[in-house]
Structures are given as structure tokens and as C-alpha cells.
């Protein structure tokens, strides 16, 4: 199999030694069908054992291996070397603090995910013996796209609002809230609204749309947020007209 040599310029940051990140260049002979993650693994196994990064499934579903590849938030297991120029710049995902090398601090994202109450709130608890809820394929299709988020956080890396604004709940978490809101089995929309329809929620979004452009699963969080804005505006007017209506 033919080999092509790439220059990998990898951002390094060792909190023990470095006061700020620096770049280090590695020459990596790559096979035709490699992805960027394979090249990074090559560096770790053969050139520098101290390189730190996250990865697991190598099939674009666990969401661990997001990196900035030539400035673009990408899953390194789904970015093919054959589409790359000879020189590749690899950095940790933007907009997150760097723990070390390519590993970023995920705490803020995890907190935001939990803040939107991303679980089914049923009208009344149903016993397992009573069987499943009925849900038509059409009802399923309504929210299915928004279930596909792998929590890779590429969208947070692409979002200038997350980078600038304090506390934006962010694309993936809001898309997940939308997923449950659209589910025919769920009645939790008003419980989620505290966070979702707050200033840090959907109204912080100015619809740059970058999140949807980088999303590897085509979740389209930007779309979810705009839809939530419309629904929440309608709610507001409905509340004005019929105060205390049943939500």
C-alpha cells in the first residue's frame, strides 16, 4: 500500500511545564486509507508517548475524538488523510479550556447538557406490564433527527456565541431539549422552558448557523433552536391571551 508522508503540527500543552500552548511537528508516513486519528495514533505509538488525546470507537459514534483540524472542528476518526494537504495543523477543540495537549475540559458542556432536563417526562407513570406507548412512524420522525447527537461538542467549538457570551446553553443541549419537547410521549416542555427559553438559552443564539455546518451527524442544532424560538414566542402570546392555560 502506498505511503504518503504528512507533516502534523500538533498543539502541545503540558500544564506541568508550559505556561502556554506551543506547536510540535511530526513527520508521519500514512497509508492511503488512514484517517487523521490513525496518524495521531502513529505519533503516540512510535514518536512521542506523552501525547494526550481522547478516542475510542473509530467509527464516528462515541464522540470522543473531536479536534480542530486545519482550523475546522472535526472528528479525527472521520477525517481522511487522502483529502488533506501535506501539512496538517491539529489543535484541541476551540472554545474549551485545554487540560493537556488535545484534551479539553468538558465540565461546562456536561453541566449544560444536564441543565435542560434531557429525559422523558411522562404524563403519568406507566407500569411496564401495561406495555409500550403507541407512537406512529410519523410521530417518531418528527424528533428522530434530534436524537442523533453524539455529544462530540464540535458545535460548541464552532459557535462564536458560546465563545463570547457568558453561559450560552449551546447548540447540542438545546437540540436535545427540542428532541424531548417534540416527542409525542413527553409533557416536560414547560419544565424545560426555564433554561431553554431563558436569556442564556435560545435567545442567546443569533443564528450564525456554524453549529449545523460542522455537525457530523446532521443533527442541525441551529434549526432546532430557531424552531424552539418560534414555539416559545407562540407560547408567550398564547399566555397573554389565555392566562393560566393548561400547558
Amino acid at each position, binding site marked *: 500500500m502506498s505511503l504518503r508522508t504528512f507533516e502534523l503540527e500538533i498543539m502541545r500543552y*503540558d500544564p506541568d511545564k508550559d505556561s502556554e500552548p506551543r506547536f510540535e511537528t511530526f513527520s508521519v508516513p500514512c497509508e492511503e486509507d488512514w484517517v487523521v486519528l490513525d496518524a495521531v495514533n502513529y505519533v503516540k505509538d512510535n514518536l512521542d508517548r506523552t501525547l494526550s488525546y481522547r478516542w475510542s470507537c473509530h467509527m*464516528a459514534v462515541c464522540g470522543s475524538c473531536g479536534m480542530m483540524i486545519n482550523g475546522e472542528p472535526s472528528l479525527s476518526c472521520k477525517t481522511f488523510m487522502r483529502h488533506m494537504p501535506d501539512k496538517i495543523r491539529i489543535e484541541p477543540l476551540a472554545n474549551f479550556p485545554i487540560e493537556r495537549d488535545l484534551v479539553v475540559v468538558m465540565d461546562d458542556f456536561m453541566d449544560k447538557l444536564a441543565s435542560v432536563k434531557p429525559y422523558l417526562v411522562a404524563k403519568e407513570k406507566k407500569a411496564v406490564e401495561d406495555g409500550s406507548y403507541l407512537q406512529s*412512524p410519523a410521530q*417518531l420522525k418528527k424528533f428522530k433527527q434530534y436524537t442523533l447527537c453524539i455529544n462530540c461538542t464540535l458545535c460548541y467549538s464552532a459557535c462564536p456565541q458560546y465563545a463570547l457570551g457568558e453561559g450560552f446553553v449551546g447548540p447540542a443541549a438545546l437540540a436535545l431539549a427540542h428532541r424531548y419537547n417534540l416527542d409525542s410521549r413527553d409533557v416536560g416542555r414547560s419544565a424545560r422552558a426555564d433554561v431553554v427559553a431563558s436569556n442564556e438559552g435560545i435567545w442567546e443564539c443569533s443564528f450564525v448557523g456554524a453549529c449545523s455546518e460542522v455537525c457530523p451527524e446532521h443533527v442541525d442544532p441551529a434549526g432546532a433552536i430557531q424552531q424552539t424560538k418560534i414555539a416559545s414566542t407562540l407560547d408567550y402570546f398564547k399566555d397573554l391571551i389565555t392566562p393560566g392555560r393548561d400547558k
Partner: protein
Amino acid sequence: MEMTTTDIVIVGAGGAGLRAAIAIAESNPDLKIALLSKVYPMRSHTVAAEGGAAGVAKDEDSLDNHFNDTVSGGDWLCDQDAVDLFVEQAPKELTQMEHWGCPWSRTSDGKVAVRPFGGMKIERTWYAADKTGFHMLHTLFQTSMQYPSIERYDEYYTTDLLMVDGACRGVAAIEMRTGQMRLFRAKAVIICTGGAGRVFPFTTNGAIKTGDGMAMAYRAGVALKDMEFVQYHPTGLPGTGILITEGSRGEGGILVNNDGYRYLQDYNLGPPDPWPRKKAMELGPRDRLSQAFWHEQKKGRTISTPHGDVVHLDLRHLGEKKINERLPMVRDLAISYVGVDPVKEPIPVRPVVHYTMGGIDTDIDAKTAVPGLFAAGECACVSINGANRLGSNSLTELLVFGSRAGRGAAEVAMAESTHVDESAIEKAAEEARAKVTGLFQNVGGGETISGLRKDMNSTMEEGAGIYRTEESLKDTCVTMKEIHARFANIDLEDKSNVYNTDLLQALELGAMIDVARAMAVSALNRQESRGSHQRLDFVERDDEKFLRHSLASYAGADDPGVDYRDVVITRSQPAERVYGGDQK
């Protein structure tokens, strides 16, 4: 050492660990749970499961059918009391998942849809398109967020179980972001750390599936059961080992050799028509299909590629619409990783290491022989999978035995009035810490992690692959013993604390070496062919001698000792496994 006192520690936040945590939280909200995982929960490898989860759903199906398929699929090495319990609980657990919001695919009347799977007589595999494990894991993770008693410790690498007076009373774990060792004191511990496919070079398993929990329990004195049974899945993508789900054959995909011939009919799986027929041809069990590939390859009827020989999985006749609706991920994976659009061309596939049937020896309540210690999920061996797991039984197993382990541990925790003495458990934790600091102090040994891993991978593939012989296995056992000794000479290049993946990979390698040795030695001792364990020198199944579970016990540098325990047989006597046209 910083100590956290809790009621129950769960190691592993994949499907099994999360299910256990929720079961505890629901059974008693006052119990404190520490859920430790070396990766964020949604990265756990349950996420990669594609095809579906089995549980009787149709009126014309029955629990007996599911029982019989599972027991014969496992070549009668399953404990039948456990299988009975499993098939009975399966539909309930899957319905519970539906109540928690799992987006199961639906039929036009709004009911949950089921698809056919290999070795299953009737459609009973619940699915969410071809991302079932992904949806189950995220549903469980998201559901778990509503229980305040579940305290998560994400990116905590557990190194040891802490034993006090012969009982398991906690764990030692490295907080990865600081590198500090932390001690967790508890009344009960549940291990849910998943499988060990990474022992082999070519596998569908993610980088994290390194058998850590198996090794921890093994070293703490629990036997590893039936470790010789390693499942090869017949359809992995060459090069990466990415899985193409059995669901693609369930939907009607066919396997052909270099002549375009459906070769499975030559291996007692035919006739090929009428199609589709359950438990026949492409819907035969995985062990048979992978073995058929091996024979085709010997006959020179496979197709050679730079990444090894392949056969073709042809989905074209399903049409674009069905492929997009039922198998969107398969299409995406094939296009991305082998440049083949299944709508237009057949997908190249070859057998790939997929699943460890064996694991930590537990009883039907997910309890191990060590007081206070439970295990569930792929790391455990209950055993319902016997010598060959049927596809889609594992995701269900996570739920059934995950919740059972959770409830069992809750009972233990409620019965214990006090925690063990701080000083006793600190002593155990100090020993665990000493092992880790020892790794840092190695210098000049000259062994590398990647070098040892490569050697382990290749000897396991050569000696303990789809077909095995006494000679190949003996070689592997010797080589693995050497590798175990060489492990003492690895040098850590990374001496820092924060997120030291060099250290973690060394610890994972140590676990894999122990697990691999249990596999090889158990395989050498089983002088028969059964399910996924095929010996060229003992080609028959030998119920007289080996209708028994193997139990490997840890012996440090020496090869493990292997004992046996009778299989529990309640109502299905061992018989020949029949697939294809010969079925009744």
C-alpha cells in the same frame, strides 16, 4: 489518600452500569451511588452496537422459543435457569426502555418494530434503525440525570478492588485530570466494565475495551469463566474492523464468494431458497458463519484485498429507500471507510473479533463468589451466552442483569449497617497506589507499550483465532507468559500527572495480558469443539467431558489453574445444533 464514602460503587457507565445505577436509585433513593467510568458515559462502547436487542414481542413467538434459540445457539453451554430468567425479563426491560424514551423503530400501527436476527426463529430483535446501542446508551445516560443519588465520577480509571477480610469494600481509582489516586469506600461494588476484544488485533471493539474489570476481579480472587469462547462476527470491514451489523442480513442482505455464489449452502446452512428463512443461510449463528468463511478462504474462494481476504455482503436488492430507512449507518460507514456505496456495490467483509462470551463468574443474581462484589454486562459470565452468543442478546443482557445487580447490591448495602474501618481500607488502597508508583519508577527496561501490545495481539490471533490446535495454543500460552514477564520492563515515557494516557495504556495492557492468558490456557485445556471454540485436533463436541464451564483462577506469573463446573440443565438436553433446511 482522599477518601469518598458511599453506599455502592459501580465501575463502568456503559449500558450495564447505567442500568444498575438507575435500578438502585429507584429501589432506594437514600442509597448513595458512586458511578465511576474511565470515559464519559456516552463514550462507553455500548454506543457502537447497531443491530438491536432481543425480547419476545410477537404473538406467534414465545418465551420457550427465545429460550431454545439461545440455548442451542450457545451449544448447550448456557445455564438454563439463567436463560429462563433472562427471556422472561427481556420484554419487560425493553418496554422500560421505551417508557424512558428510547426511540425504537415502529410499525405503521405505532407498535415497536422487531427484525429477524441470526439464529433466532422468529423476529424478536427490537431496534432503533441501526444505532440501537447508541440510542439505548444515550437514553439510559439521559434518564440517569434525574436521580440525585447517582454521583458520577467521569474519567476515573479504576485500578483495583479493595478487599477487607475477604470481602470487597471499595475501589482505588485514578482521577485522570489530576493523576491523584482516590479511594472509594462502599458496602458493595458492581463491575460493569465491558469486554476485552482489544486483546486481538482485528476487532469491532473500541480502544477502551481492554478487560480492566475482568482483570481486577480475577486478581482479587474471582474466577474467569468460559474465557476460551471469543466470538468472531462474520461481517467486519477490512482494515478498520468496523462492524456491519447482522441487521443488514436480517433485512435481507446476502453473502457471496468470489464467484458470486452463496457459499453458506455448502456448510449445512442451506438451501438458499425460499428467502428469507430464519435460522438458515445468512441468518445462521455467527460461529458457523465465521467458520464457513475460514473454509472458503482455505479453498481459495475468497477475494483478496490489501487488508486480507474478504467475501461480499450484497444489499443492492434491498433498494435505496429501505437501506436509508433501516440501515443508514451501515451505508454511511461503508461509503466512508471502504469507499463502497451498498446501494450500488456489495460491501467487502471478513470475520472480526467481536464479543467475549466468558467473563467474571457470577450467579444468576449477578453475584460473584466474593462477598459484596457483583458483575454485569459483557465483563460478566452469568452464563446465558454459553459457547456462542446470539446476536442481540447482549444488549438485553445489560438491562436484565444490570438491574438485577443493582437491586442485589442495594440489598447488601441496606443490610450492612456500617462501613468498614477506615484504616483497614486505606491499607488496601496504599497497596494499590504502590503498584502505580512502581510503574513510574521503572527505568531502562527497554520494553514499550506498543511493542508488547503488538506481540500480544499477533500471538492471540495466530494461536487462539477461529480455529485452534494444541500446538498453536501451547505456543501462545508460552509467548503470553513471556509477555507477562516483559511487562515488568516497560518504561513510562510520560512521568506527569495530568491526563497521563501513557500510564493508563500501561495499566490497560497489564489487564489485557492477564485476560489473554486466561483465554489461551482455558482454550488449551478444552479438548473439544463447541460453539466459537473450534479445535482442529478435537473436532467433535464432547459432552461427556466438557459440558462444563471452565473456571480460570489467577496465579500471578504462572499460568492460571483451570477448574470446571457443571452446566445447569433444566429442560433442554444437549442435542445437535441444526440450522437451515434440516430444521424441524
